[in-house]
């Protein structure tokens, strides 16, 4: 065995998967996992662990895999992460744990993400619940939002013995894991639901269809409902648009809408009541992970799919793996182009998009080379659907109805990094609602930090 190379992970054939919503990556089996685990150098100073936002003891769980002790491996992960089956699938490991792996210096880093996923899947398939609820301490915490930040915070608090209730605005818990990330990257029934079930088994109560800020307020939770603290993990749900002409035409979606219809409402299934209109040719505007998700979804619904992005390949903010998968499946990348107008037919339906070519100029504030328009290079891409995937910002619905909760100029809740404390006593926050749109794992890290912060606040009380 060549130890510089990873054990390859099995995937659905690109041509087959471009027409279905089944998971793309099939994961390791036991034999493959043990083989990959044996590549770990077991470094004395494990940099991988420093690269993990929730500080999983990575060498320890890999060692257990190598020994074939999968339960023990699950126990190690459970000490740090409540959602390993999800993180193993959607974390950007290449810039975190795997980016720091010493193996990676002279070869490919250990597939830490795939190993984490293996352990989580093994535990689920073998009904092994690693974490146990703590001794009840009689204190109540309300969690607002059941996405990655909220779930992590809820799980950690339940382990410490808190009585936790999670409030979710949608009819299903999971937040972005359910409405945003598509089935082919993160299966809902097979992975997300069981992970949430694990948290429920720790005694966490879920109340769906409750919009904190509308159905109930933070004041009521604290003053009338007897909660001792509140954690806000409401994410970044507001879609951005470009404000170009024609953007309100029929056939222009926000990525949020397109993905919510498909993921949460299951519009891709025949038996769903929610319609989705994909057309024959779809243009997705943007280059992030959400843009990749939207494009790969449109492709699976049968459309020729283009990604229009104003910078070049090197600046695509999406994970390499996502770009690679999208391309393999047949998504066409129209790089260094920017939409300037959406063209419509007589019934106000999209019929095309006018774009202008761009070139890269001097680096901007983000350090990336700034795209500059090439004069006179406008042309029209024919299309019947446009999906705007330009990022999202936090929803003001909760902050605008809560006294004493300060936000910054981007609408993000101001919270202390070390403990999640907001400007309102007893109220903590974390995840995209604080940072602006980021990743699942950073939200989980923030949920974890806030759980510790809440514990310190309430035990010091």
């Amino acid at each position: 065995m060549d130890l510089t190379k990873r054990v390859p992970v099995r995937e659905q054939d690109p041509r087959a998967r471009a027409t279905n919503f089944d998971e793309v990556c099939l994961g390791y089996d036991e034999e493959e996992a043990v083989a990959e685990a044996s590549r770990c150098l077991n470094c004395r100073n494990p940099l991988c662990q420093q690269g993990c936002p929730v500080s999983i003891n990575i060498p320890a769980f890999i060692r257990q895999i190598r020994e074939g002790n999968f339960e023990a491996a699950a126990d190690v992960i459970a000490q740090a992460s409540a959602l390993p089956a999800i993180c193993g699938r959607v974390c950007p490991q290449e810039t975190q744990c795997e980016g720091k792996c010493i193996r990676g210096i002279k070869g490919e880093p250990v597939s830490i993400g795939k190993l984490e996923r293996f352990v989580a899947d093994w535990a689920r398939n073998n009904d092994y619940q690693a974490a146990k609820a703590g001794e009840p301490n009689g204190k109540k915490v309300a969690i607002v939002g059941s996405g990655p930040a909220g779930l992590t915070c809820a799980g950690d608090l339940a382990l410490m013995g808190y009585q936790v209730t999670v409030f979710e605005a949608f009819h299903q818990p999971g937040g972005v894991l359910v409405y945003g990330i598509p089935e082919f990257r993160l299966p809902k029934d097979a992975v997300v639901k069981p992970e949430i079930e694990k948290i429920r088994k720790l005694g966490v109560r879920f109340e769906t269809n409750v919009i904190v800020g509308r159905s109930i307020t933070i004041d009521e939770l604290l003053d009338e409902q007897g909660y001792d603290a509140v954690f806000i993990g409401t994410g970044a749900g507001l879609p951005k648009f470009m404000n170009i002409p024609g953007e309100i035409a029929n056939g222009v979606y926000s990525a949020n809408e397109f993905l919510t219809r498909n993921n949460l409402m299951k519009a891709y299934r025949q038996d769903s009541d929610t319609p989705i209109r994909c057309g024959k040719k779809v243009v997705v505007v943007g280059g992030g992970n959400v843009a990749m998700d939207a494009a790969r979804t449109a492709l699976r619904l049968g459309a020729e799919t283009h990604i229009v992005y104003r910078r070049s390949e090197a600046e695509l903010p999406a994970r390499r793996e996502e770009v690679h998968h999208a391309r393999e499946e047949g998504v066409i990348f129209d790089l260094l182009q920017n939409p300037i107008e959406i063209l419509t037919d007589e019934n106000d339906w999209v019929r095309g998009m006018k774009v202008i070519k761009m070139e890269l100029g001097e680096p901007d504030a983000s350090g990336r080379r700034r795209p500059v328009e090439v004069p006179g290079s406008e042309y029209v891409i024919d299309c019947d659907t446009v999906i705007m995937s330009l990022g999202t910002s936090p929803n003001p619905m909760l902050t605008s109805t809560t006294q004493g909760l300060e936000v910054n100029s981007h609408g993000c809740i101001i919270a202390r990094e070390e403990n999640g404390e907001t400007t309102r006593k007893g109220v903590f926050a974390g995840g995209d609602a604080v940072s602006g749109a980021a990743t699942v794992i950073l939200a989980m890290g923030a949920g974890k930090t806030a759980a510790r912060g809440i514990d310190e606040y309430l035990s010091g009380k």
Partner: protein
Amino acid sequence: MYRILKVQHLSEKNWLMEIEAPYITRRCQPGQFLIVRTGEMGERIPLTICDYDREKETVTIVFQVVGVSTARLSELKEGECLTDIVGPLGRPSDFVNEDPEELRKMHYLFVCGGVGIAPVYPQVKWLSRHGVKCDVIMAARSRDLIFYEEQMRSVAENVFITTDDGSYGMKGVGTDMVRKLVSEEGRHYDRCVAIGPVIMMKFTSLCTKELGIPTVVSMNPIMIDGTGMCGACRIVVDGKVKFACVDGPEFDGHLVDYDLAMKRARQYKEEETAAMHEYEEHHCGCCDRKEAA
């Protein structure tokens, strides 16, 4: 959970339901709406709140069967439960936060068409409780489509009825009555609220603009989450894009782009028609409706 306490078949396609929904009833205000869902694969349907009882913790909704989702909703019986209900959504009517003293100097004219009677009722009820005078024009195609008349009369100063076919009240449409009251009878109104089909709100707004009466309308576009997340409910007001779910649903009637709103409302017409066709075929009466739900 979300138990249906009362089902009333109002007319051919119109239904009324009273549902247990404590979270909504505790805090809802006139002008707000809710979202319901029927069945695990059901669509999220935004509906206006017709009435609420804070003690019983129930809300009353009125809806028209326009597609598969509303047809499914209409099949639910008393004692059964909705799969989901969530709210209150949207901003309350502006008057809720105005000085009651100032409000009492105003005379309101409400124009409601079709199921638009439903959201008007809690507004009139609220205003009359605060001592504000309200006249209400209830407009419908024919007599059997008028509902809640008695309740409306119990809270409004005057109720005027128009029907397209003349089967009840004055023959004509809502705007005919507006003109009659204002131009012929010389009545004065400080504010108008028009709620109903988009086309009716459009013409009512054109009419009140001419008569110089500030007008509020309530938009009910296609929506998914109702919390500002998806942007499906985008409409244009005064040249600016607004999200009806969080910026509204009520807007200045003289500034809404109604033609655009009507085009956007037809986005899924083909899909809806096909789905309804399939639904009706499978609902010949010989099979149990639960199968489809």
